[in-house]
């Protein structure tokens, strides 16, 4: 079994407005990248502040690298926690050069070599004497990363680090960052509200909602077997179709669907249906109608109204073109079981 890098248990932090934590548990293993995802206001930033130590929880326990930093033995101040952080706004010190920013956290007689090594890692050696405001967003990002990694923290926190970058840079920078973290075997907690980013960056993904972690698992687990309705909706475009459990599967208005989880016979359930599992083809006799097409480049997403008035989404190749108002037949061939949640909500 792998060593535990960060352990949070029963963290409670009360706020009047958004961002409160209500008994949060999280376990991060050594050397893994944990992608922490959740909607804004779910308390992601609060959690990071508790781990770095600039805020203290109302109750709960935090252990970093086997050493309790919040708990019965008192509080360890931020500077002695060995937690690095890359800020959303980078928080580069505007009065210090790139090299001085990186050197800021380094101890020892000769940080010069180390600064050079860190700048080499992020490929910015020739920018060492620039000031932060002379750098592009992506370069500032890399300086922030080099600065945070310099003191070799036990865990590196990244707070929505790519949110200030444009789309093109974003993909490139996140690849670079992932490679750098991998190279050093860095333990990292990566906070984002982009599901795609979380699935790409994380060895494991933790989905946070309303001050709690709702599910932790590999990207495939969290995407394929969501533990709650919220996770199902948040991790991918999901529609919920009510149905009744029979011996052959779940009977819904678009046909018999196979559940992936254990459910009791005769129960009313909602089946989580993702757009990529739904196939549609024009059929004048069908009661389902295409309402709109959302063109996303490589794919088209069709919004379809079922005879019951419910909506469902279908993801098709960009070559499949169906005009709005066309009646279509809805065909389900997922090739895998679908997650069912008990208690129809409508």
């Amino acid at each position, binding site marked *: 079994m792998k060593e535990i890098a960060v352990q949070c248990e*029963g963290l409670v932090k009360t706020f009047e407005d958004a961002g409160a934590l209500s008994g949060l548990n999280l376990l991060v293993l050594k050397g893994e990248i944990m992608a922490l995802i959740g909607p804004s206001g779910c308390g992601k930033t609060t959690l990071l502040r508790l781990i770095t130590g600039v805020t203290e929880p109302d109750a709960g326990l935090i252990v970093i690298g086997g050493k309790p930093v919040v708990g019965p033995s008192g509080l360890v101040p931020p500077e002695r926690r060995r937690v690095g952080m890359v800020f959303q706004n980078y928080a580069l010190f505007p009065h210090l050069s790139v090299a001085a920013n990186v050197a800021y956290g380094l101890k020892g007689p000769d940080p010069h070599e180390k600064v050079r090594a860190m700048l080499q890692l992020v490929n910015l050696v020739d920018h060492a004497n620039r000031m932060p405001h002379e750098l592009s967003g992506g370069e500032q990002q890399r300086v922030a990363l080099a600065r945070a990694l310099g003191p070799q923290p036990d865990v590196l926190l990244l707070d929505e680090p790519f949110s200030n970058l444009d789309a093109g840079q974003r993909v490139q920078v996140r690849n670079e960052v992932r490679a750098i973290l991998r190279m050093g075997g860095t333990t990292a907690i990566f906070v984002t509200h982009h599901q795609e980013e979380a699935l790409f960056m994380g060895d494991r993904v933790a989905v946070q909602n309303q001050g709690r972690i709702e599910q932790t698992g590999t990207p495939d687990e969290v995407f394929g077997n969501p533990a709650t309705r919220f996770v199902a909706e948040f991790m991918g475009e999901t529609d919920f179709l009510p149905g009744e459990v029979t011996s052959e599967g779940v009977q819904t208005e678009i046909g018999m669907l196979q559940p992936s989880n254990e459910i009791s016979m005769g129960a009313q359930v909602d089946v989580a249906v993702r757009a990529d599992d739904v196939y549609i083809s024009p059929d004048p006799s069908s009661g389902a109608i295409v309402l709109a097409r959302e063109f996303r480049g490589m794919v088209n997403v069709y919004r379809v109204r079922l005879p019951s008035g419910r909506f469902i989404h279908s993801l098709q190749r960009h070559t499949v073109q169906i005009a709005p108002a066309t009646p279509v037949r809805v065909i389900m061939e997922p090739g895998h079981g679908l997650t069912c949640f008990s208690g129809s909500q409508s």
Partner: protein
Amino acid sequence: MADSAYVGRSAASNGLSRLRAWWVSLPGVLWIVGFLVALVLLLPVAYLLLRALGAGDAAWQELVSARTARILGRSLWLAFCVTLSCALLAVPLAWLTVRSDLPLRRMWAVLTPLPLVIPSYVGAYLMISVLGPRGLLQHWLEPLGVQRLPDIYGFRGAFLVLTLLSYPYVLLSTRVALSRMNPAMEEASRNLGSGPWRTFWRVTLPQLRPGLVAGGLLVTLYVLRDFGAVSLMRYSTFTRAIYLQYQSSFDRTMAAILALVLVLITLIILAIEMRTRGRASYYGGDVGSVRPAVTIRLGHWRWPSCFFCAAVVTLGLFMPAGVLLLWLVRGIRIGVDFSSLLGAALNSLVTSGAAAGLSLLAAIPVAVLSVRHAGRASGIMERIAYSAFALPGMVVALALVFFGAKFARPLYQTMAMLLLGYLILFLPQVVGALRAALLQLSPSLEHAARTLGRGPLGVFSTITLPLTWPGMVAGVVLVFLTAMKELPVTLMLSPLGFSTLSTSVWSAVSEAFFALAAAPALLLILLSSLPMALLVLRERETIA
């Protein structure tokens, strides 16, 4: 690995360990120092209350009399008018000298804050000697048949003198805010389709608000506590009434009652200020650091703007200086003895410098707590610091004389007592300047420094201090200048035989020996101009 029982216990024993952590942490030290500072600041109010409570019915009668109501009305009206006109003068001046291509911009930048170095009693006296009955102006106009000039005494004179002397408070704080502002916000506004005027009103001005409010508050309180100008202009606001009361009778109770009312008004003003402050935070750049702003071309407005600066500087600086020189020349002609001047100058420098340093040290905990640990307790601490500014120097002096005579005999009439008086008087100025600077520093910079292994003190000295020192220097310079020209406290708390420039001026003026007053007054202005000029030059460096 910890089990759940361990977690359960943690909540129970967290209290004690948290307390222990609190004592050794920097916020703990800050709270202790801040608390002590607040206690010292409350000392004069405690004295006033003691006096008032001891007086009984007579005090109550005085409190509700029509006379008190008239004094109240005069004080508030004067404070309102002066503050408004100061803002109207200072905002355009700040903008012109920081952001525009005004001709001779650097020179105006140095000259416009200088009226600050003129003591209000000197300003009032010089204005009377020019515009008053039988003054210089009438003397010059007499050949043209002018027999009488409009009366300068009363509201008119007090308003004019106080506006011209105190607008630099708003100017300096607005300028610091302007130079620290992220120009990207203005660019964003222009980009969103707003013209330059709309951008100024909707984006620039709201962002200047912390600085503007801090400066405006200083002016309002300056007027409410001013003694020299209103006395010479014979406009009976609270301070003059208190002084007359104190002079005419040996009963200090009445003075204490009026002073308490004055303190109450200030507290009300402070409450209004707190409500209008708004909840927005004013950190500079979110991404990276702040770029220098683009200079805005004035076009046709170049010369009218230049004329505006010239007019303000002439009225507030050149005219008083010219009149002073006139008196100086007359003094030399009649053979006045200037030998005592050097010692007085040295005394002024030393005491003012010490007062500035002391105020900075005491202000740092209060400002840091109110910005970074905002809450009820730190809010109260900040209010106490501000309310201390409402105490007229005369009242602080009285309170400390009383306190010294009764409870601190060894300190009575020593340098320590004088510095304590200065500290109580000047702390709010430094707190205001520090707050404005700290509000624009993004907390994530300090957070980042903590995660990089620096303790609270290390973060303060390597990040907070280097990034906020323009604001700190502004605060310290303000204190230094104000201490130089301070009169009532210096007069009453100085050790026996200890004379400064300001007491030399006062004794000469009060003996109507105007020629003798001219030399120390001029020296005072010159000495005070040096740090001010340095400050303005440094300010330009950081902008350019």
